[in-house]
């Protein structure tokens, strides 16, 4: 297979406008002859479905939740980046592009990232137009704050609920198109298979979660906006239902899966409390604007704090180690996420951790003294309240405890510049694709990418494909052999799962997988650990197919069956993640191989051997996936070692 990213030629800043002015478009009368399937209703899916509906396409939009408004984009707290330079602090499209490439540790495509930075400004305008209540200054202009990995303030926000407000904006636009009849919405409906006809993506098979009915749907194109696969780890900041199955089905039908090992571990989450824990809660990165991260300087103090003999508020300043400020004077507490996460792990591994030992402090005392409690409350009130409800401690009075947790997956389906996968007619947008964040995503960039793809990229690029499909008649999926075959395959898988009748719940097996993933494919990876991890993942998979118990029937609401279908895919996906991590013998961004680090413990990238996108092709269940390499040619920027010290 020849991986052609289809990057337009010409200067970086002109690629997107050149593309737009020369691509094929579909005329308005023909648009309504095309059916487009969009799976997912998060920022990418809802914005794409709404925008395609506005253009006149006939859209079918699917979500597993009870309403499109529930998609997990809603949980994003801190903000969305854009290169508006409203603060006059020297921002520009180029700078946002550069920060994103650098933040991603030089493992993302130049052209895609530049386009992302370029359309960022239009996103803000669009959202304001929809009535998103962004924070404002007293003059009535939009306010900004700073985020990790940047020296400017370019993050727009709506209190600590930015994702929610942006999603509700997109959901509003989607509702308008549903009412207009351009989008048909299928909620509580999960995609279980991709249908290929003569090598082209032509539809999907879904399960109605309430009735259990398997239903075929035709589309001239299929767009996956199904988010990331962070729940492979069981414990993560993802929603409980977030899963990697749609992307995995596409992979098994021939779409390449890129950089599966690139997972973001977010430094500021509420630490794990016990074995019944079901998910981890993020505390927004925006807190690092005013909070200072520290652990005790002395091992004895750390021990006494862990044992409850010493209160953190009683420890004098000179006995505290503000380790991010110490190690990275230029960026301090606002270093990128991967750097902050590893630094926390390093301190806790060295036994300076507090709480259960797997936690560090995020302290607002200095900020409250400088700005007053009221300002802090205005900025972070809802986050402080959320923390207090979970931990039962008041963060205005005692420092928060935080620890890194799985938060985002940079890897995903391989897509070209048009966001098309290696299967013609199949597109992937938002977190579901791999394209823009390299080996590490900067804060407030996920919302930007989801909306960029959905509002301003896919609605154009998909037309360049659809223009080749003029004259392809709508298929009747209820009477088409490929659709019938796909339904039979899905039914067969469901029957197989239901017939196991073992002794273990899906969750108990998922937790086993999660432990293996966190311990072996987590923040610090080694050759031996990954090999051991792969062996253990296979054991859990074997146990799953022998011992899982799914009570109830398949032809009705069956939550255990839903979870089992997802876990079956996580088990395969987890192994590919480990394999990708094993093959990449370098450290970059969120991928840290302990064998490859500098004397100071920083990531040691290998640009000679690993400056490529690793794209994996499915070869069959019993065979090793095949690796393709898309070289990353940096034409316009100079590659450097990331430095957040100076």
């Amino acid at each position, binding site marked *: 297979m020849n991986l052609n990213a289809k990057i337009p030629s010409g200067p970086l800043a002109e690629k997107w406008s050149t593309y737009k002015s020369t691509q094929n478009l579909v005329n308005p009368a023909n648009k309504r002859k095309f059916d487009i399937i969009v799976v997912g209703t998060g920022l990418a899916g809802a914005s794409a479905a*709404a*925008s395609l509906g*506005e253009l006149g396409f006939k859209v079918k939009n699917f979500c597993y*939740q*009870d*309403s499109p*408004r*529930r998609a*997990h984009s*809603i*949980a994003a707290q801190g903000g969305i980046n854009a290169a*508006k330079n*409203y603060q006059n602090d020297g921002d520009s499209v180029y700078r946002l592009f550069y920060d994103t490439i650098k933040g991603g540790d030089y493992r993302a495509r130049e052209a895609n990232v530049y386009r992302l930075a370029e359309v960022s400004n239009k996103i803000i*305008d*669009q*959202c304001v*137009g*929809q*009535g998103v*209540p962004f*924070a*404002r200054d*007293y*003059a009535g202009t*939009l306010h900004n704050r700073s985020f990790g990995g940047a020296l400017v303030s370019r993050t*727009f926000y709506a*209190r600590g*609920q930015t*994702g*929610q*407000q942006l999603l509700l904006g997109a959901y*509003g*636009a989607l*509702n*308008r198109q*549903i*009412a207009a009849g351009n989008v048909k919405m299928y*909620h509580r409906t999960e995609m279980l298979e991709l249908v290929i006809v003569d090598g082209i993506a032509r539809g999907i098979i879904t399960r109605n979660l309430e009735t259990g009915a398997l239903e075929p749907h035709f589309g001239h194109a299929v767009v996956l906006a199904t988010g990331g696969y962070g729940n492979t780890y069981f414990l993560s900041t993802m*929603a*409980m*239902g977030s899963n990697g199955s749609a992307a995995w089905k596409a992979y098994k039908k021939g779409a390449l899966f890129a950089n599966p090992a690139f997972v973001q571990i977010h430094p500021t989450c509420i630490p794990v*409390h016990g074995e*019944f*824990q*079901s998910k981890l*809660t993020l505390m927004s990165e925006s807190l690092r604007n005013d909070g200072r991260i520290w652990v005790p300087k002395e091992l004895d103090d750390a021990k006494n704090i862990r044992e409850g003999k010493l209160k953190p508020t009683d420890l004098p300043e000179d006995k505290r180690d503000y380790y991010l400020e110490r190690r990275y004077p230029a960026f301090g507490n606002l270093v990128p996420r991967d750097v902050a996460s590893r630094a926390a792990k390093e301190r806790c591994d060295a036994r300076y951790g507090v709480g259960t030992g797997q936690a560090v402090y995020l302290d607002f005392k200095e900020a409250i003294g400088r700005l007053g409690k009221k300002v802090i409350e205005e900025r972070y009130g809802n986050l402080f*309240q959320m923390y207090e*409800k*979970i931990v*039962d401690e008041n963060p205005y009075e005692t420092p928060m405890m935080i620890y890194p947790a799985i938060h985002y997956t940079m890897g995903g389906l391989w897509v070209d510049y048009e966001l098309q996968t290696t299967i013609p007619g199949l597109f992937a947008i938002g977190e579901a694709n791999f394209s823009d964040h390299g080996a590490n995503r900067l804060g407030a960039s996920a919302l930007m990418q989801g909306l960029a793809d959905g*509002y*301003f990229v896919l609605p154009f690029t998909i037309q360049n494909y659809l223009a080749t499909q003029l004259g392809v008649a709508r298929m009747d999926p209820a009477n088409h052999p490929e659709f019938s075959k796909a339904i039979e395959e899905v039914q067969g898988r469901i029957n197989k799962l239901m017939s196991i009748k073992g*002794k273990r*719940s899906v*969750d108990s097996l998922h937790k086993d997988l999660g432990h293996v993933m966190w311990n072996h494919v987590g923040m610090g990876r080694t050759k031996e650990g990954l090999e051991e991890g792969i062996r253990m993942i296979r054991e859990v998979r074997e146990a799953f197919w022998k011992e899982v118990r799914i*009570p*109830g029937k398949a032809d009705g*609401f069956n*939550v*255990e069956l839903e979870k089992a279908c997802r876990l079956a895919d996580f088990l395969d996906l987890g192994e590919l993640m480990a394999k990708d991590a094993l093959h990449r013998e370098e450290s970059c961004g969120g991928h840290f191989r302990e064998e490859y680090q500098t004397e100071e413990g920083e990531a040691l990238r290998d640009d000679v051997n690993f400056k490529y996108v690793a794209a994996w092709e499915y070869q069959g269940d019993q065979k090793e996936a095949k690796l393709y390499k898309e070289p990353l040619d940096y034409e316009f920027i100079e590659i450097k070692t990331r430095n957040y010290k100076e």
Partner: protein
Amino acid sequence: MDLTLKVWRQENRKAKGRFETYAIKNISPDSSFLEMLDVLNEQLIREGQEPVVFDHDCREGICGTCGLFINGRAHGPDEDITTCQLHMRKFKDGDTIVVEPWRAGGFPVIKDLMVDRTAFDKILQAGGFISINTGSAPDGNASLVAKEKADEAMDAAACIGCGACVATCKNSSAMLFVASKVSQLAVLPQGKTEAVRRAKAMVAKMDELGFGNCTNTGACEVECPKNVSLAHIARLNREFLAANLKP
């Protein structure tokens, strides 16, 4: 903690429901309420029974999916939270806890503790948006919004669509839900153009879907996990009055 649970079980939309009693042991006070239900379900699956079905997703209080009536209170015995944010430390060892789904004509039970809230989507589809196409918006700073107005819009926009307001209202009214959207968009300059039409269409749809009238008891405001204020209903009434005065 050891607890007795009385949980509403109902096979499907048409079936007659009933309470089932379960004993559950060794629950950590630091667990969330939903994690306690996870433990119950693990126990039921081990015993070969069907687990209790309940709606939930983000488990951090923002998606609005979860919603249980616990000991007679929407989202249970704590202030300003969703069910997933309720923690077991709010209960005592030996307590009996009654767990029910939202009960309202507009929210039929699908199974056990899970209800159908698509009526909320339909109300918003009737007009809960600003009719602007992708790409046609002016610069974000082109029209200024006073900070107080932006804050007020954000207060209203905080609604997560969980339905606690309806479940707790003796009339099963959706006024607080409708008002939050009408109010958010009516205070912003970009939403004013359609304000009248919006209020009219959303209220008409709410009535059509069988939600009751608002009699100002204020119960909704008390149980709203996001503290959406009753003042927004007053604004809705003003907008609606204006809507009815204009043909």
